[in-house]
């Protein structure tokens, strides 16, 4: 069967790719576009390691088909830093040691950014529920939640 030709925007750049109907966006990112910062932990929508945003909306890329990217604006972890300038969340994750192995980190960062864009002043409980779809087996979440709340406070102070 012929592949689909898809035109989309990834991290602000126009991108075209070919994919099969059944190929997930996660597989397209990783296997076709070599954007391997987006991780696969389950491929069933249960772990959040594959988090991306589509037109600003947080989605599990393993639950989205590549063909659905047509005409939309995708953001992945690779687009989070501005050149060598880390996003405040990335910087705080480092300062708080909010990662151990780091496999969950791209997903948490993308999901946390989506949270702060919607709610610049989340309570701890709001942050915990927003991030409940992202699994981390290493940290027990403590330092992740602290990093997110502290980033929110800093960003509020800065704006």
């Amino acid at each position, binding site marked *: 069967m012929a592949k689909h030709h898809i035109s989309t925007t990834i991290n602000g750049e126009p991108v075209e790719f070919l994919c099969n109907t059944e190929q997930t966006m996660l597989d397209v990112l990783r296997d076709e576009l070599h954007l391997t910062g987006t991780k696969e932990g389950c491929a*069933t929508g249960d772990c959040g390691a594959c988090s991306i945003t589509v037109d600003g909306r947080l989605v599990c890329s393993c639950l989205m088909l590549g063909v659905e990217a047509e005409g939309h604006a995708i953001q992945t972890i690779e687009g*989070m830093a501005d050149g060598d300038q880390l996003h405040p969340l990335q910087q705080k994750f480092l300062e708080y*040691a909010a990662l151990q192995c780091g496999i969950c980190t791209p997903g948490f960062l993308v999901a946390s950014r989506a949270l702060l864009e919607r709610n610049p002043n989340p309570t701890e409980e709001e942050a915990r529920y927003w991030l409940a779809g992202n699994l981390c*087996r*290493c940290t*027990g*979440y*403590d330092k992740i939640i602290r990093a997110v709340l502290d980033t929110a406070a800093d960003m509020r102070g800065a704006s």
Partner: protein
Amino acid sequence: MAPDGTPDLKVVGTRPIRPDGVDKVTGRAQFGADFQLPGQLVGKVLRSPHAHARIRSIDTSKAEAIPGVKAVMTAADMPEITSEEAFVGEGPADFKDMSGNTMARDKALYDGHAVAAVAATSAAAADAALAAIEVDYEVLPHVIDVEDAMVEGAPVLHDDMFTSGVDPKPATPSNVAKRMVFELGDVDAAFEKADIVIERKYKTAPVHQGYIEPHACVAQYAADGQVQIYCSSQGQFMVRAYVAKLLGIDISEIRVTPLEIGGGFGGKTLVYLEPLAVVLSRKSGRPVKMAMTREEVFRGSGPTSGGTVWVKIGAKRDGTIVAGDAVLKFQAGAYAGSPVGPGCMTAFAVYDLQDVRITGYDVVTNRPKVAAYRAPGAPISNFGVESAVDELARELDMDPVELRLKNAAKKGTKAAYGPTFGDIGCVETLEAVKNHPNYNVPLGPNQGRGVAAGFWFNIGGESSATVNINEDGTAVVATGNPDIGGSRASMAMMAAEVLGIDVERVRPIVADTSSVGYCFLTGGSRVTFATGMAVVEASKSAVNELKARAAKTWDIPVDAVEWEDGRAVPAGSNAGDFEPLSLEDLAAKSGRTGGPIAATSSLNAQGAGPGFGTHLVDVEVDRETGHVKVLRYLATQDAGRAIHPSYVEGQIQGGAVQGIGWALNEEYIYDDKGRLENPGFLDYRIPVASDLPMIDTVVVEVPNPRHPYGARGVGEVPIVPPMAAMANAIQDAIGIRMTELPMSPPKVRKAVDEQAAAEE
């Protein structure tokens, strides 16, 4: 000097940003599944749908005929291995069993057991090939539960398994691989002296390590027999050794390049895919990439044992514990080798107890072969013992922390597993709990507080490190241990401490098996201790060389040179009056003073410091739903010396939360055919952020005299106490003793209903 006699430290104990941090927050770090080689094929595994079945035949011809399929393999493509013991991660492993576990030979022993594998040019072709392989199975009766497996007449997994450790040697095969007894003093006489005896049986469920990154690798077999493997694991040297052994290849032919590892917790101290990928690459002549799906991780890779723990403890009225007796039955999965040995030895290790007997059984069942999981074995026996000690405290009407303090092991105590303890921090962790505000927070209705203490030996072992001083005065530190939770940071810090330079000027790398000396795997909480020791030794050698170069420059004897804050200085006025030479100065001139400055150290570190921790948890139980909410959690632990305190806290928090999952939710659910019903994160529910409060930590520091900076391993202990602490808190909240894990809502609800019925 600090008051405790340890040297003042400039880098150790601070919290620099980890050297690999930026790679990991920007998505640049390459994990197991992120690597690829040009022309690589997709490898996939066919797994048994049966819990126990004889493999009569496997016909791969249809699969091989599918376009794009380049290789199909079965166990027939691997050398047959006779039994041979060798020490690996969690105890003596049998390479015959390991071979059988990577690919079933005559029998499939669990749902998910690999029976064949394929390599193809696309995932679709590989899937089609798997579907086209015809396996003729003769389905056999199976057994899942550990005690069911021990009864006479149970389906026997291995007809050559005769229980060892019993006299006389059994005449018929069974599922009990081994019986072992640990004994100190005279237990029966000691029970005579007890005023109070608590006796009860507890049960735990097997749980998976639950690393978020599934196993993955790329292997390339070249025509000259050279093998390259790129994979994430807890030890590139472990992968090299096992692949060599399982496939009969010389070690010198294999080079393993470690990729970043997305969690392991003991579960990646084995090989599953690597030998298969090498065989497929040999057969196809192309590189082969293999990655497990999450379902395969659950069905095909090792959880830790579940088991039953019968405990009997005796105490005097004043709370002195005088005797302990326990029987542990651990299921090992399909092949022998559960961590029942360490389960036995750790069972009573928190206590000063001279009369102890622990009997252990290692039992095979039709489940995936267990793999190590943080402090292997200890959490299971600890759940029983620390629950029983809580019952004892209630019986005595004593504060549970006071009871533990009264009986806690200290320096000079003969451990309940034998040897005399040196410097340990058991009492300190209990005191830290008592002094923490959480200990006195008032509790509401249906809320309860539980405490439990735990122990792990920690290990040392073989490690190597290389320190290269670069010509601009920076340094590269190479070691051979995958960085699973920030160890690059601690290696760089220890090197920077010795060299006397900024930690930012030290670049730590995790080298491949051909580029650094042998390192035993990352596990057992050994890296900071043992590999750290190698880094310190290598750095010291580099400093000695730097001093020698300064001595040459100044034309004075080398022992007239001292190293201070990263500079060579003359030792006192007698040595002469010279301007200090910085590491940078010396490095810049190294070519003209004798050549590059590099140092290595290879050692076998002994005397790892035992670790103790005490956990305190407050819960609220919803009597309607059986849901247990964690309100507050405190974990205290002796880290010896925290090299990077943030990562020490992180280890403790992560371990505690894994323990909470073990306590409340995690279990394998099998149908009546022995098929795993919950091989995914939706139904095998690990804790998520909204399940938890912050995890408070107190790190106490009782330095380990055997480490240059006093470090002890910290990664294992925190998973030991949580299950009992949670059960004890639930008891405190609703007056019900939960004896079986997980204490999931249906089970708690049922217990509440039974309590209500009993009260009527």
